[in-house]
């Protein structure tokens, strides 16, 4: 029977062992190495996407290591999970803890991630205090790099939250411009999936649409855990707008696409980069997905002839097609690798300060084209690419690169 005393002994021993094991982990002996922290929600609902992002980043890093590292430095990776069972998905508190972990580990010179902006909000102040730069391939909430909130998110002043995606401040409004200018939409109904990303992009889309004279007939919010959206879609049908805009990720997106093809077959339908990906193609399938517009917050990678071999290598190594964010993660890794190279080349010691400065002044050739950052850490290139799902029977139905037809760049907002 467990007496109190024996319990305390057992607990302290376990705690001791745990503490020792934690420290034992970092006993890696290395000649010249630098560490990159990768913080993604590997636990919970976003785990699948997190894996794809990680794979994109690791592809670049492993390839660099295979060629002897960067300027003689071997790249090590510190994988951290900001998803918890408690939240069932990304957990800002865990993200904050992970940020501290990375800051505390002196070998970490830069980070990739986070995936979700909610984590980013918690991490950014900590990273700023620790002068540790992170490059995120998918966090699009504009607040984090907005100079208005600089006091909150980068107390030390310098930009540390870099992105290889454009923020919702552009993705939403530019698509509204596209609706107005190219699709000649006069009235629209806006939906979001009640998540942080979805609400944000739907808000910015809606604001710009109104500015451009498109009548917004209504705005509603879907519950991604629910399945039946026929109520909302029927309501939309009765209001008869020219078009529908969905801001959100695939969890609700798949169901919207499927059910809208039944209820709103003729309407113009589009959304943000949550609708761009294999999950939509796999989950919704054809004919439901046919005709949907989607945007990505980056220039079109297919235009870049260097993209195809990378995509092939990804598919070969990981057995599946890369997603949009796998590519941006690959690019994020390239940015960091390039920064390390330049710091080493200039003769300076590879510290996180130096790496941050190098990232700030980056001119890196990536799959998205040339990447440069502005003073806030945002991509200077604000190109939003518009795609449309058009079935191409020559390729498998979930082949993202060939089922999404590139239509062009969305008109920039003034």
């Amino acid at each position, binding site marked *: 029977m467990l007496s109190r005393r024996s319990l305390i002994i057992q607990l302290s021993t376990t705690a001791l062992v745990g503490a020792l094991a934690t420290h034992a982990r970092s006993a890696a002996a290395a000649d010249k190495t630098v560490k990159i922290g990768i913080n993604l929600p590997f636990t*919970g*609902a*976003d*785990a*699948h996407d997190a894996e794809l992002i990680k794979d994109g980043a690791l592809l670049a890093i492993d390839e660099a290591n295979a060629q002897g590292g960067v300027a003689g430095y071997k790249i090590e990776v510190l994988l951290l999970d900001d998803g918890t069972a408690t939240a069932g998905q990304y957990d800002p508190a865990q993200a904050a803890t992970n940020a501290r972990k990375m800051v505390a580990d002196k070998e970490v010179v830069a980070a990739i991630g986070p995936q979700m902006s909610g984590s980013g909000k918690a991490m950014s102040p900590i990273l700023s205090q620790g002068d540790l730069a992170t490059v995120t391939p998918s966090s699009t909430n504009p607040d984090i790099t907005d100079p208005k909130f600089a006091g909150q998110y980068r107390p030390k002043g310098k930009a540390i939250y870099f992105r290889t995606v454009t923020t919702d401040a552009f993705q939403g409004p530019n698509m509204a411009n596209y609706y107005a200018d190219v699709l000649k939409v006069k009235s629209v109904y806006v939906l979001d999936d*009640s998540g942080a990303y979805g609400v944000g992009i739907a808000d910015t889309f809606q604001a710009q649409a109104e500015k451009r004279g498109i009548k917004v007939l209504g705005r*509603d*919010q*879907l*519950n*991604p*855990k*629910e*399945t*039946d*959206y*026929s*109520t*909302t879609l*029927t*309501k939309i*049908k*009765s209001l*008869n707008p020219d078009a529908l805009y969905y801001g959100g990720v*695939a*969890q609700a997106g*798949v*169901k919207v696409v*499927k*059910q809208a093809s*039944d*209820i709103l077959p003729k309407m113009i339908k589009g959304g943000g980069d949550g609708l761009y990906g294999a*999950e939509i193609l*796999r*989950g*919704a*399938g054809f*004919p*439901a997905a046919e005709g949907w517009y989607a945007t990505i917050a980056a220039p079109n990678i297919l235009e870049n002839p260097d993209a195809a071999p990378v995509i092939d290598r990804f598919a070969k190594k990981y057995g599946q097609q890369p997603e949009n964010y796998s590519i941006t993660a690959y690019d994020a890794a390239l940015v960091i690798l390039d920064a390390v190279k330049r710091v080493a080349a200039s003769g300076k010691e590879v510290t996180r300060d130096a790496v941050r400065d190098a990232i700030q002044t980056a001119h890196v050739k990536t799959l998205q084209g040339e990447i440069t950052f502005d003073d806030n850490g945002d991509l200077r290139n604000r190109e939003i690419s518009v795609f449309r799902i058009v079935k191409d029977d020559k390729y498998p139905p979930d082949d993202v690169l060939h089922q999404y037809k590139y239509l062009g760049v969305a008109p920039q907002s003034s």
Partner: protein
Amino acid sequence: MSDYGVLLQQVVNGLSLGAMYALLALGFTLVYGILELINFAHFNVFMVSSFVGMWALELLGISGQGHVLTGPALAGALVFAFAVTMLAGGVLGVAIERLSLRPLRGVPGTAAMITTIGVSYILFNVILLTVGAGSENYPNPLPVVRWQFGEVTLELKTLLIWGVATALMMTLHLFVNRTRLGKAMRATAQDAEAARMMGVDVDRVIVAAFFLGSALAGAAALIFGLYYNYTSFIIGYTAGLRAFTAAVLGGIGSVPGAMVGGVLIGLIETLGGQLIAVRWTDVIIFSILILVLVFVPTGLFGRAVPTKS
């Protein structure tokens, strides 16, 4: 669409949803009537069954919505799928009862309910970890047929739901009221001790209740998959809570109550979404749940009063 037309369409939508909720609610009510236990695992039995249905259809070579069958082939495929899914659901339900609930029979308090929460989590996570978080495109052999009645659209699959759900509910009703086992179930629900003394094998009755309820959940799951062309690890959660509200609204422990409650909740969901906004649906439904439990605990048809004796 005119106002009238859209409302009518929403009623059609609501009845389809309601049929599914009714099937799920029946499972809750059967178990609650006998054991006075709220079985949280029920809605994840539903979720797991939908995957089983998917695999059963894939076994027949059907994938996606492309493989459409008609006539006897269609009937055969559906019968096979229903049989497999309902059996799987029933077996899973019985296994849960045997392994995790029977040892706790007689333990006062909420220990059993807490255990069902644990089982629910286990089922949920096993699927999440093995199949992943993605949405699955459900194999569907049904041809897409639409009829237009004025402004209202009716689909073949809608009729399928109504037909199958009604058939199952009628069968259950007959079973509970006309067969010996059904009578034994009703007796046990009223007074387990007395039933035992009258020679009713209460254990067998409980197993039967779990089997039936879970099989119905399996049927609901297959219907769900065919109707939405979709399944994923998350479908149990919202559907389960709504079905539970339906059971409570109709009167927990009452079979006709679950049916009526299901339809009512379906209608409230669609009409509430149309007239107010979809973002408030959950709040509306939970408020109904709370109000019913507080002010009319017997629900519409029930006799069991959820208060301490």
